[in-house]
């Protein structure tokens, strides 16, 4: 569904490349998380996958980016918009300001695609329910809290049902349960065959819980790619500024203090941590 080959990119007027020789493939129906310290190239990669690079930002691009069979650098943004949806990092930048209600804002993309009104209303309301905004459909988007605006930005993309959904820290302002619900909703969307998802996130616990795969970037280069538990505990990833879940840190500390088996793999989710710290000799206690 996504194929990136030797992608190197520099923004205009910058001496150094933001992405260096990045290569990876994402099959259809995968939930792939992108982690990395700030300015490691995560947002730049999101722009390159959705066509904002090079069409909007220009700059110097080499290598290949193809999404759903479209050669991204050679395809106009308007044509990409129906296939790839990008949810911006800052929701305040995504709300158009051109619609007076939350429902109208959610339907804005569909209006531009010429979807019939009756279908638009149904899809907008379904999507608002999915992101937990049903009760606020008639309110002005400008009267929403930060987190509610972020839910609306998310809805405005999901409603278009793009084949590929790219989300740049879509939960940065959401409350904790809201964050988990968004992750769960994305996982459901992927599981139902509805989309391939690329998600940039700092909230490692939920990346670990819900993503199929994690790609780690550092200094514009791909440094690790694989299952969440492996990538999120890889020393080069941790050292690059991604940090670690508290579960992994507690496990590493317990291991350093000789409280647990020295060879046990570090956990990244609650369930893995429960297993890690469960009395390993429980069997011995039972006669």
């Amino acid at each position: 569904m996504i194929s990136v080959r030797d992608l190197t990119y520099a923004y205009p007027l910058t001496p150094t490349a933001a992405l260096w020789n990045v290569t990876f493939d994402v099959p259809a129906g995968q939930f792939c998380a992108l982690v990395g310290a700030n300015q490691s190239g995560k947002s730049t990669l999101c722009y390159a996958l959705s066509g904002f690079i090079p069409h909007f930002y220009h700059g110097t691009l080499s290598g290949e980016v193809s999404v759903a069979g479209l050669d991204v650098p050679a395809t106009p943004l308007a044509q990409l918009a129906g296939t790839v949806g990008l949810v911006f990092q800052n929701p305040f930048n995504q709300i158009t300001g051109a619609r007076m209600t939350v429902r109208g804002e959610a339907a804005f993309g569909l209006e531009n695609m010429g979807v019939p009104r009756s279908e638009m209303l149904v899809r907008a309301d379904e999507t608002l329910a999915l992101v937990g905004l049903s009760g606020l459909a008639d309110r002005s988007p400008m009267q929403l809290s930060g987190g509610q605006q972020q839910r609306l930005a998310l809805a405005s993309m999901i409603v278009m049902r793009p084949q590929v959904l790219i989300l740049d820290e879509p939960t940065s302002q959401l409350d904790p349960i809201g964050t988990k619900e968004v992750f769960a909703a994305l996982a459901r969307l992927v599981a139902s065959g509805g989309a391939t998802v690329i998600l940039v996130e700092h909230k490692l616990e939920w990346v670990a819980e819900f993503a199929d795969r994690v790609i780690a970037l550092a200094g514009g280069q791909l440094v690790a790619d694989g299952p969440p538990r492996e990538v999120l505990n890889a020393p080069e990833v941790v050292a690059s500024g991604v940090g670690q879940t508290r579960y992994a840190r507690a496990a590493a500390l317990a291991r350093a203090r000789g409280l647990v088996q020295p060879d046990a793999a570090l956990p990244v989710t609650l369930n893995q941590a429960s297993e890690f710290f469960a009395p390993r000799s429980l069997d011995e206690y039972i006669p």
Partner: protein
Amino acid sequence: MNISLDGVSFAYPSGVMALLEVSLEIASGEAVAIIGENGAGKTTLARHLNGLLKPATGGVAIGEWDTRRVSVAKLAARVGYVFQNPDDQLFERTVAAEVGFGPRNLGIPLADAAHAVHNALRRVGLAEQADQHPYDLHISQRKLVALAAALAMNTPIVVLDEPTTGQDAGGVELVGQIVDELKAERRTVIAITHDIDFCAEHFERVVVMAEGRILADGPAARTLSQVEALAQAEVEPPQMIRLARALGMDHAPLTVEEFVDDFAARSAARSESGPKVHGLSGSTPNDSSVSRADSTSGPE
């Protein structure tokens, strides 16, 4: 300098009731985190502290000042405020001018103001970027510029609206360190945050809000263990408390270190008293705390 909210209610012009008879006393030097669902009224409450919003009914006092009788400009000398969205706050052409805006307006002598600016930028790690345009920085750095602008005012009270949003692990650690320094300086720190692990590690008191009301208020270890109140506010306990519960441990550890200490103590008690009693009491699969933790732990 104490902060006192007495029966504060507030409605936006649209009619949305954002605060409903909220009363809250914060003593000088306290570190208080306000957590809760989106739209709970957290930012509305915070904006009452620097006078940007005035209560419709009830009153807000900062020290002996009633916010309804004191201008926002004057209140700025007591309450430093960092906006949730830095782009709502930043408007100067250079980082240094931005951070110097507050001190200049407080009438601080030029040399002292320059010193305050330099110090504040050093604290947030942006001394090198002093001459850059704020909008040439990454949004996570702009957020730190906004934080520096509040620090430079040297106010006895600092209010941070979502200070860790968009920061990577290093940025979160830096913000945590600044909060700890402010605490050490006996300044009052009030933070709105959705980062419950950050909240557990740096704030001694936690206020839980939902639908314009305060649902719980108290020491962090106690408040962050109140699963029902937290759930009502769309919040879950921090990772270490959830793990301790899943393992059937009695304590509510706030940090990784506390958890490991508790775990070590339990392991030691076990090996001393023999495995029969302790081994099973803590980790039976039917233990209610285990099933409660499981129900909030997401799908397999």
